[in-house]
C-alpha cells in the first residue's frame, strides 16, 4: 500500500514535471518562431520602429511564465516573449502591438515590447529600466491589503537594468515589506554593447541578494529543465511567504540588441562557451535523446501554424485613425483643443 502510494506520487511528480516541460517547450518554440517572423516583418518594412527579440533567453523567460498561475501578476521586460506566451498573452496581442492594430490592448498607441494587459495580469512596461520592480511591489501591496492571499508577482530585468536606482529601490522596498515578489535577472553579459565589467563590479549579481536581505538563486539560463525547476522553486517560496526571490540566470542574447543591431561587439569566446548555447537547441536535442523527438516536431509544427494564422489575422485588422482617436490622456476630460495643441 505504502509502496503503491509512493510510486503514484513519483509518477504524479514525473507527470507534473512533464506537463510543465511541455508548457515550457511549447512556449519556447512559439516565442522563437513568432520572433523569427517579427524579424522578417521588420526587414520587409512592415514594422515601424524597433524590434527587440529574446532569442536565446526563451528558457529562462518561459520558465517564469510557466511557474506562475492565473491570478498572479507578470511584469515582463524587453526579452520576454516566451514568458508572456507561457503566462497567457495571446500571440495576436504581441503582433497587434508591433503592427499597431487598433484591436490590441495598446490600440496602436504604444508598440512592440511596451505592451501588456492589466485584465490578464500583465503589466505594460515603460521603457525606463528598473521601473517595473516597484510598480509590481505596489500591486502586491494592494493585493495584501485587499486580503488576496498567495498571489505572486514576477518581473524580469537584464544585467544592465540592475544598475538603475529604480531596481535597487524597488527590490529594497519589496524586501522591507517581505512581498511575494520574484525578480528574474537575465544576465546575458551585455547591456546593449556594454559588457558586465563596465556595468557592475561584484563577482555575480546573485551576491546582491544577501545585501537586500532576500533569497538568491543562480541558474544556467541555457538549460530549460534547470530553469523550470529553479523558477518554480522561487515562485513557490514567494507564494509560501518567504519574501522576495532574486533569480539570476546566465545566458547570452543570440541576436542584436534590436533588429537594427548586428551585435558584433559580443565576444566570440563567450559565444562558443556553454553560456552561448541556444536553449531551444538544448531542449530539442535532449528531447530527441529521451525519445521524444516526434513530440517536439509536433509542437513545432503547431507553433508554426499558430504564427502563420496569427499574422494573417492581425494583418487584416484596422490600424488607428487619427480622426476617430480619442485624444484625451485623462479620463476626467481634457482641455479644449484651442489651448495650443495641433
Amino acid at each position, binding site marked *: 500500500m505504502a509502496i503503491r502510494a509512493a510510486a503514484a506520487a513519483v509518477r504524479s511528480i514525473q507527470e507534473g514535471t512533464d506537463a510543465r516541460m511541455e508548457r515550457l517547450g511549447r512556449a519556447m518554440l512559439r516565442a522563437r518562431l513568432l520572433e523569427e517572423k517579427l524579424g522578417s516583418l521588420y526587414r520587409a518594412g512592415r514594422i515601424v520602429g524597433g524590434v527587440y527579440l529574446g532569442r536565446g533567453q526563451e528558457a529562462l523567460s518561459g520558465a517564469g511564465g510557466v511557474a506562475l498561475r492565473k491570478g498572479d501578476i507578470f511584469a515582463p521586460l524587453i526579452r520576454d516573449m516566451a514568458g508572456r506566451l507561457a503566462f497567457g498573452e495571446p500571440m495576436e496581442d504581441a503582433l497587434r502591438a508591433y503592427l*499597431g492594430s487598433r484591436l490590441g490592448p495598446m490600440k496602436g498607441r*504604444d508598440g512592440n515590447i511596451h505592451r501588456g494587459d492589466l485584465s490578464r495580469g500583465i503589466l505594460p512596461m515603460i521603457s525606463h529600466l528598473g521601473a517595473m520592480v516597484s510598480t509590481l511591489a505596489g500591486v502586491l501591496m494592494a493585493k495584501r491589503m485587499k486580503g488576496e492571499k498567495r498571489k505572486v508577482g514576477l518581473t524580469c530585468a537584464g544585467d544592465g537594468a540592475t544598475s*538603475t536606482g529604480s531596481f535597487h529601490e524597488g527590490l529594497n522596498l519589496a524586501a522591507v515589506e517581505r512581498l511575494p515578489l520574484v525578480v528574474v535577472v537575465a544576465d546575458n553579459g551585455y547591456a546593449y*554593447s556594454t559588457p558586465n565589467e*563596465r556595468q557592475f563590479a561584484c563577482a555575480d549579481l546573485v551576491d546582491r541578494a544577501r545585501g537586500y536581505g532576500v533569497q538568491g538563486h543562480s541558474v544556467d539560463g541555457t538549460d530549460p529543465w534547470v530553469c523550470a525547476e529553479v523558477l518554480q522553486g522561487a515562485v513557490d517560496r514567494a507564494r509560501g511567504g518567504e519574501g522576495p526571490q532574486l533569480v539570476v540566470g546566465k545566458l547570452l542574447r543570440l541576436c542584436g540588441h534590436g533588429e537594427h543591431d548586428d551585435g558584433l561587439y559580443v565576444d566570440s569566446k563567450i559565444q562558443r562557451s556553454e553560456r552561448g548555447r541556444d536553449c531551444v537547441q538544448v531542449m530539442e536535442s535532449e528531447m530527441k535523446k529521451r525519445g521524444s523527438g516526434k513530440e517536439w516536431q509536433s509542437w513545432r509544427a503547431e507553433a508554426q501554424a499558430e504564427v502563420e494564422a496569427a499574422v494573417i489575422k492581425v494583418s487584416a485588422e484596422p490600424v488607428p485613425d487619427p480622426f476617430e482617436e480619442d485624444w484625451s490622456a485623462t479620463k476626467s476630460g481634457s482641455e479644449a483643443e484651442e489651448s495650443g495643441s*495641433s
Partner: protein
Amino acid sequence: MSVTYLDAIRSAQEKALASDPTVFIYGQDVGRFGGAFKATKNLAERFPGRVIDSPISEDAMVGMAVGAAMEGMRPIVEMQFADFSTVGLNQMLNHAATTYWRTGRTCPMVLRLPSGGTPGSGPFHSQSMEAIYSHYPGIVVMTPATVEDAYTMLLEAVEMPDPVVFCEHKLLYYHLKSDHLPESAVPALRAQVVRAGRDVTCVTYSAMVHEAVAAAKELVEEGYEVEVVDLRTVKPLDTDTILASVARTGRLLAVGESWPWGGASAEVVARVAAEGFELLDAPPKRLNAKDTPIPYHPNLWAAHRPTAVRIAAALREVLRY
C-alpha cells in the same frame, strides 16, 4: 563632402576633446560602440580614457558630472534618449542648476539629449524635454535646428560656465545635411531670423523650424510673406529678436513640438502679449503637439505633432484675423 547634423555633433565633441583636456564624455555605450546613434563614433579610440561607458544609472551619471564639474572638469553626458533623462532630473535640476547661485562656483557641464519624435518611437523614445529644464533657474537650454548650429552651439555649450541641456533632434540626425562645417558662428544665446517676411512671425525651434519654413513656402503662393524666427536657445529666451520681428509683422504664431501646457511656445506668446501688446494686429497664437503621450503608430504620430500643413493652417488663421 557633406556633413549631417549627427556628424556635426560628433565633430564638435571631437574638437572639444582635442582642444580642452578637461572635457570628457560619459554615457551608455558611448565608448568603443560609439553610442546608440553613433554620435561618439571613434572618439574613444582617439581620446583614450576620456570617452567612458557608464552603467545604466542616469541619476548617478548626472550626479557624477556635477561633481566632476565642481572639480574643474567639463563633462559631456550623453543620455541614450532624452526621455531617460527624467531619471537624472534630481541631480540636474536641484544640484547642477543651483550650484552657481548657492556657492558662486560654476558647474560647467553639458547634458546631451537625443530628443523629439520619429515614426514608430512611441511614448518613451520621442520626448522633447526643453520645457522641464527651462522651468528651473540655473540651466541654459539649447535646441539647434541646423547642421551649423549643432556644431557651433555644442562647442559654445562646452565652453559655457553654466550647465547646458543640449536638445538634439533625432529626426534631423541623418537627413539634415550641409556642405561643410561652419567656420564662424552666430552666438548661441541669440535667436535668428531664418526667413524674412512682412506679414506674420512664426517663432519656433529645433525640427519645427524646417516645418515652419516649408509652411512659409506654401503661403508664398497665397501672397503671404512669413518671417520665421529660430529661437536656437529657448532659455534664456531672446525676447528682443522676437519683439523686433513682431514689430515688423504685427502677427505671431509660436510653434513647438512638445506639449501645449507651458513650455517655450507658451513663454513666447506670454512675452509678446505682455511686452509687445501694442505691436499686435491679431491675437497671438500657438501650435503644439496634442496633450497626450506621443503615439507609436505613424498615423497617430503624424496627427499628434505640428506639421507644415498644420502650421500653414494656423498661420492662415492669424493672417486672416
